[in-house]
């Protein structure tokens, strides 16, 4: 089962990378983009029989390893199970 983990700096934490990217975009003419926050994105292949189990496992791993709770928060999406007949892996995210 595929699980996506989005790790971002907490809103209260200054993001030097995001600030640099914001400045770069502005200098390239993208004045309409107000602010950029840079984060990390993990795609996990989780061996689990249910979405709940996959979410539980991913949440544990994200809290213990993938994110530092002092400065980061995370969001988890479990990819819904795609019917075998569809033959595609790009299911909707739950």
């Amino acid at each position, binding site marked *: 089962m595929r699980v996506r983990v989005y790790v971002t700096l907490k809103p*209260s934490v*200054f993001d*030097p*990378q995001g600030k640099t990217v914001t400045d770069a975009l502005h200098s390239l003419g993208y004045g309409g983009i107000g602010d950029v926050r840079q984060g990390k994105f993990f795609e996990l292949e989780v061996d689990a029989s249910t979405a709940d189990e996959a979410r539980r496992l991913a949440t544990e791993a994200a809290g213990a390893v993938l994110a*530092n709770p002092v400065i980061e928060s995370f969001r988890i999406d479990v990819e819904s199970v795609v019917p075998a007949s569809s033959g595609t892996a790009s299911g909707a995210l739950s």
Partner: protein
Amino acid sequence: MKFAVVVFPGSNCDHDAYHAAKHVLGQDAEFVWHKDTSLSGADVVVLPGGFSYGDYLRTGAIARFSPIMRAVSDFANAGGPVIGICNGFQVLLEAGLLPGAMLRNRSVKFQCEFVHVRVEQTDTPFTAACRSGQVLRLPIAHGEGNYYAEPDVVERLERQRQVIFRYTTADGAVTDAANPNGSLNSIAGICNERRNVIGLMPHPERACELAVGSDDGLVVFESVVQSVKMGSGVIFGGQSAPVAVGQGTGVLEK
């Protein structure tokens, strides 16, 4: 007395720390591999600088799960002196042995240069031989040294005098320009509440001989030698923890 220098895969200042302890100070020193589970009777533990496990996920994030870290944690909890330098500081933060976290430098650059830090407190095993307010010229070499903690945590660190080193000018003045990485309150190093665990971003072990540009870092190592020889209870915990007095160095030999 003996220094244990922990070696993680990717440590690269381990030999500098070993050299400072063994050859400059003439003390026993031993490398301890990250897969070891014992500090083999060391009196002082050094978590050195470098890029443990490549820092691929986050600085220090994987190192804290090393088998040796349980022994380091037990040693620290027993009052033994532990110093984390640069990446070692980041490991101590990730391990929860010190509060806070490191952000990217505000310059977004890896910074490798000499800076000045002011010794804020001398009642720790690693600053006992310093003068209060003494300014040390030490090198930094890091990309993530921008110290961050929640405001209440920073306030507590200040109130409990746990800020041990602060970036300053050569004259000891705290200015924004003298803060190389954007650390809150110009924090360069802190200690735990018990004052026996210290983390700092600058590299005292790389500044122990004039041949390498500065020997200002030597006092940090001289401090801990002096502290251990005097007995742990005299220095660690200070007056707030009189129960430690009398345990002497015995507690360190576990």
